[in-house]
């Protein structure tokens, strides 16, 4: 299958400042690719390069098979919701979408149709004649996503689409992201700080750090690769605490067992750094054999957030 986005050693420099260095990855059609990274990691620069707003200083890329040397053609294939996008306050939602549909080559009549259909899709039909000035932040973000779809793009770039939204607003935006891939078959590149939403909607993840690609893979691959479990937090029946502590301490690969904070019966088992990633399985087996009732269990250091922190702090 030919990748819909493909980059080869893409770099971007502003004078002596390296914003992006040797970025190489590919995205298949229909994927939702999460682009993660701390502030200044190069996420927005990468999106601006791939959407042809900025020319790369080095390397090459293609979108939908179109090389980066033909930016006008690429722009016809992509939809973009920039970070902190602004909106003309004195236009209505419908006028705004109609204008962009016209900029993408639609006739007046079809631009009107597209605007109405998209407003319905993002749940803004009833506000289509209201000035954008009266829209909430969540409504503006949905309008921005609708604008990114006016040209039926093959690739949609969403730069921090949930920034500043309340949980309900975030949910609506994430639901739209899922529908873009499921119903339109478009590829989505989602840049975000919120790791939970990446775990929820992204099929693959890129982690950028200081302009470089720190990791690439599925959420579970990255979590496994970068953040082997360091400890386990468990809760046992209160009367079994002492037995559990002794059993775990005797188990191979567990270095130390400490009382956990919070509930009575909670324990933290520190894993031996050189132990196998499955060391805790043996400990759990030993607890079962010792007839200890385990009420809750969680491996720490096996989540995307741990991988993210490990990869971005190390570099």
């Amino acid at each position, binding site marked *: 299958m030919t990748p819909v986005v493909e980059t080869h050693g893409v770099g971007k420099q502003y004078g002596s400042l390296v914003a992006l260095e040797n970025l190489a990855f590919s995205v298949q059609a229909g994927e939702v690719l999460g682009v993660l990274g701390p502030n200044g990691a190069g996420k927005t620069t990468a999106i601006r390069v791939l959407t042809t707003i900025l020319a790369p200083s080095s390397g090459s890329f293609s979108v939908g098979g179109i090389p980066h040397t033909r930016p006008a053609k690429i722009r016809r294939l*992509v939809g973009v919701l920039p970070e902190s996008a602004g909106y003309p306050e*004195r236009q209505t939602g419908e*006028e705004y979408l109609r204008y962009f549909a016209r900029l993408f080559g639609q006739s007046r009549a079809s631009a009107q149709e597209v605007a109405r259909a998209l407003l319905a899709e993002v749940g803004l039909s009833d506000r289509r004649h209201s000035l954008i000035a009266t829209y909430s932040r969540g409504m503006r973000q949905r309008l921005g996503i609708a604008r990114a779809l006016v040209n039926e793009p093959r690739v949609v770039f969403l730069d921090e689409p949930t920034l500043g939204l309340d949980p309900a607003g975030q949910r609506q935006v994430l639901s739209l992201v899922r529908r873009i891939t499921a119903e339109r078959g478009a590829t989505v590149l989602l840049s975000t700080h919120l790791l939970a939403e990446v775990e929820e909607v992204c099929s693959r993840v890129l982690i950028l750090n200081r302009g470089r690609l720190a990791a690439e893979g599925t959420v579970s691959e990255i979590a496994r690769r970068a953040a082997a479990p360091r400890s386990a937090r468990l809760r046992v029946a209160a009367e079994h605490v002492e037995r559990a502590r002794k059993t775990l301490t005797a188990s191979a690969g567990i270095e130390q067992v400490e009382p956990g904070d919070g509930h009575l019966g909670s324990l933290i088992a520190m894993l031996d750094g050189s132990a196998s990633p499955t060391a805790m399985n043996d400990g759990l087996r030993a607890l079962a054999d010792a007839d200890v009732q385990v009420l809750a269990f969680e491996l720490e250091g096996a989540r995307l957030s741990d991988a993210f922190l490990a990869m971005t702090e190390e570099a």
Partner: protein
Amino acid sequence: MASAAPTMPQRRTPGWAIVGRQELRDLWLGGRGLLLGLAFSVLLSTIAYLTATNQALNFLEQRESVNLTLQVAIAVGSLLVLLAAADAVSGERERNTLETLLVTPVSRLHLTGGKLLAALSLWLAAFVITIPYVWFLGRGVGVVRDALATGIVVGTLLAVFLASLGIIVSVFASSNRVSLALSLFLLLAVFAPTQLPGSAQKGWAGELLLRVNPLTAGEHYVGKILVSGHAWSEDASWLISPIAAAAVFSVAAAIVGARFIHLGRGGS
């Protein structure tokens, strides 16, 4: 969410026309243009009243009052155009609306063209507002037709020059405030020679200064036609500078717009 093939129809209307139409809607239906037009007509009413009353006292000859009113209309109309143009790119950048325009297939040249067109509409509106004042002040001395004709020619040349200048400043300015301030400063610099004493405007150096400056040259030409009653062709050489400024600056604005529109700090 309806799925559709990513094939878009070919653009029937050029990008500059679509951008220009939307800019005109924003300017005029958004109320900003109407407000500026209202302020312009209040100013012109005041000028017309003062010149008409002076004329009644024989301080100003009728032709001179038409000339003064027309020159004020051209100067203030050009100022409005400059202010609108100075906001064209830096304003979009500051409102975070530029990036969404740059990711459309419309070229930066067309974006510039559409914005220039919208800014120029302020001059056309100013000229239309000026017509009844010129007619009222110039009726009976056979100067109305010449006044309107020279007004539209000279005013349009100066408006194109200043709109282009405003666009260029706006493309490079680090903020909208800087763009507006710098544009106003440049306008004042262009206006400065009009305030020189009459003696300084005489001699070859004085005449050169008047001829090189598109604003003073244009206003001088209008005065020659309206006050001195010269034929259009007699002093046509005074139009060289306004024509050259309009041509050079509009080409420069096109090149600058096409090549240098950027997102500003952090965005290139």
